[in-house]
C-alpha cells in the first residue's frame, strides 16, 4: 500500500536518527565513567598481631591495631580472651575511643556510647560495634572478618 503522504518528514526522520545516535553514544560513555570514579577498595581478609605485643594486656583494657584503613580495637576480657572490633561508630563513621575508667566506648562526634562488649547503649548509634573474629595461631593473633 502506498500512502498519499509521508507519516513523518525527512527532517523529523534525520533528527531522530542522529539524536538517537548521539544519545546512545552518550549512554555508552556514561557507563565506563561511572565505573572509573569508584576505585576498588577491599578490606583485609585478616590481619595478624604478634602475641608478644598483647600478652601483657590487663583485663578490660584495649589496644589498637590497623584494620585496613580503619582502626581495629582489641580488648582483653575478664577471662583472658581477646575480642576485636572495628573501631568505627555505627552512627556516622567516626572513630571511637575506649574510655578505660568507664569501660565503655565513646564516639565524640555525636556523643554515642557502647559498653565494653560493643553494644550500643546511649546516644544515636543504631547498632553495636562491628565484631571481628579472633583466634590464636602459634605466636600470633589472627583477626578475621566474622562470618
Amino acid at each position, binding site marked *: 500500500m502506498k500512502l498519499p503522504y509521508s507519516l513523518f518528514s525527512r527532517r523529523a526522520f534525520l533528527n531522530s536518527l542522529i539524536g538517537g545516535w548521539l544519545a546512545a553514544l552518550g549512554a555508552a560513555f556514561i557507563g565506563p565513567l561511572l565505573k572509573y570514579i*569508584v576505585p576498588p*577498595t577491599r578490606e583485609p581478609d585478616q590481619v595478624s598481631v604478634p602475641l608478644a605485643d598483647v600478652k601483657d594486656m590487663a583485663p578490660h583494657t584495649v589496644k589498637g591495631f590497623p584494620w585496613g*584503613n580503619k582502626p581495629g580495637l582489641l580488648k582483653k576480657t575478664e577471662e583472658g580472651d581477646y575480642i576485636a572490633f572495628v573501631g568505627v561508630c555505627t552512627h556516622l563513621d567516626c*572513630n571511637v575511643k575506649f574510655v578505660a575508667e568507664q569501660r565503655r566506648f565513646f564516639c565524640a562526634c*555525636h556523643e554515642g556510647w557502647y559498653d565494653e562488649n560493643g553494644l550500643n547503649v546511649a546516644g544515636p548509634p543504631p547498632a553495636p560495634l562491628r565484631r571481628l573474629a579472633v583466634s590464636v595461631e602459634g605466636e600470633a593473633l589472627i583477626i578475621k572478618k566474622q562470618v
Partner: protein
Amino acid sequence: MNVLRAWIEERLGLRAVTLFLEKKEVPRHKHTFLYYTGSSILLFLGIQIVTGVLLAFYYQPTLAEANASVVRIMTEMPLGWLVRSVHSWSATFMIALVFVHLLGIAFTKAYRKPREATWVTGVLLLGASLAFGFTGYLLPWDELSLAATKVGTNLPKALPVVGAWLTRVMRAGEDVTGDTVSRFFIFHVSVLPLAVMAFLGIHLFLVQRHGMSVPLEAERKGVKVPILPFWPNFAFREAGVWLVLLGLLMTIAVVAAPGIGPQADLMAPAPEGIKPEWYFLFMFQTLKLFPARVLGLNGELVAVLIMMAGMAALFLLPFIDNRPFARKGKVITVLAWAAFAYAVGMSIWSLL
C-alpha cells in the same frame, strides 16, 4: 582614544551593553538594601577565586603533604597566613551573604512569576557554595576536618539504592583516606568552579532580563515605585558597601587568623568537641538529637530524608508558593519563618 574606541565598538558592539546599563533602574523602597547582597556575594566570590589560586600555588593535595603544606603556607610563605585567613573569612562572609540574599528574596517573595528560574539557579548556587565549604574544610587535613568529612560523606549511605555508591564516589573508596583529599581538592578547584560559572551565568542573565523585582504589595496594588538609576547612583552606593565589607573582612582576617590542628590520623579516635562549620550546625545538632530508630525505621535514614525533603521544598519554592497573594502564600510565609527559627535555634543550641 576615540579612534581606538570606535575600532573596538565596530568589532565588539559593546554599545548595546552600556545602553542597557544606562537605562537600568533600581526600585527604591524599604527593602532596597537587599539588592546590595547579590553584588556583595560577587565581591567575595572574586576574593575567593584570587586567594584560592594563590593558595593552590603551594598547597599539595596528598595524604603526606596536605597538612604540612598548609602549615608551610602559614609559616614560611610571605603573608601566607593572611592569604589563608582571607580565604577562610571571605568564605564565611560569602556564605552569610548567600543566606541573607536567599532569606531576603524568600520573605519578599521575589521568586514569584516570572522569576522562578532565577530562584532555581540561585538554590543551585547555594548548594555549590555549601559544597565549596564542605570540600574546603577537609583540605587542611587536620583531626577536625577528618571527623567532619567522615560524618558528611557517610550521610548519603542511609539512602536506599544509590546511597552506598554515592558515599564511595565522594570518598574515593570505602573510607576517608588520602584519595579523598585529592578528590575533594579537584572538586573544590575544578568541578565546583565550572558548575558555579554555568549557574551564575544563567542567574545573572536572568536578573538582567527581568530587572529588579518590586515589593509584593506595590505589585498587587499597581503602585508605581520610585526608582534609582543604576548608573551611576546605585553603582556608587554599591561601591560604598563593598568598601565597608572589604574593610571588615581585612580587619577580621588580620586579628582572627584561623589556626590548624594536628595532622589527621586515620587510626585515631575522633577529637572531643568536634563541630562543623557554622552553616552546618543546625544539621549537626539535628543528627545528634535524632534517635537511632524512629517508628521502626533507621533514624539516620529518616533524618536524611527530612533534610532532602527540606532541600526539595526550598528548590521548588516558587512552584509551591504559586499564589503569593492568597491565603496559601501567607501559610507558606509562616512555615518559612518556622523553618528559619528552627535552623537558628538548633545552631544556637549546638553551641551551648
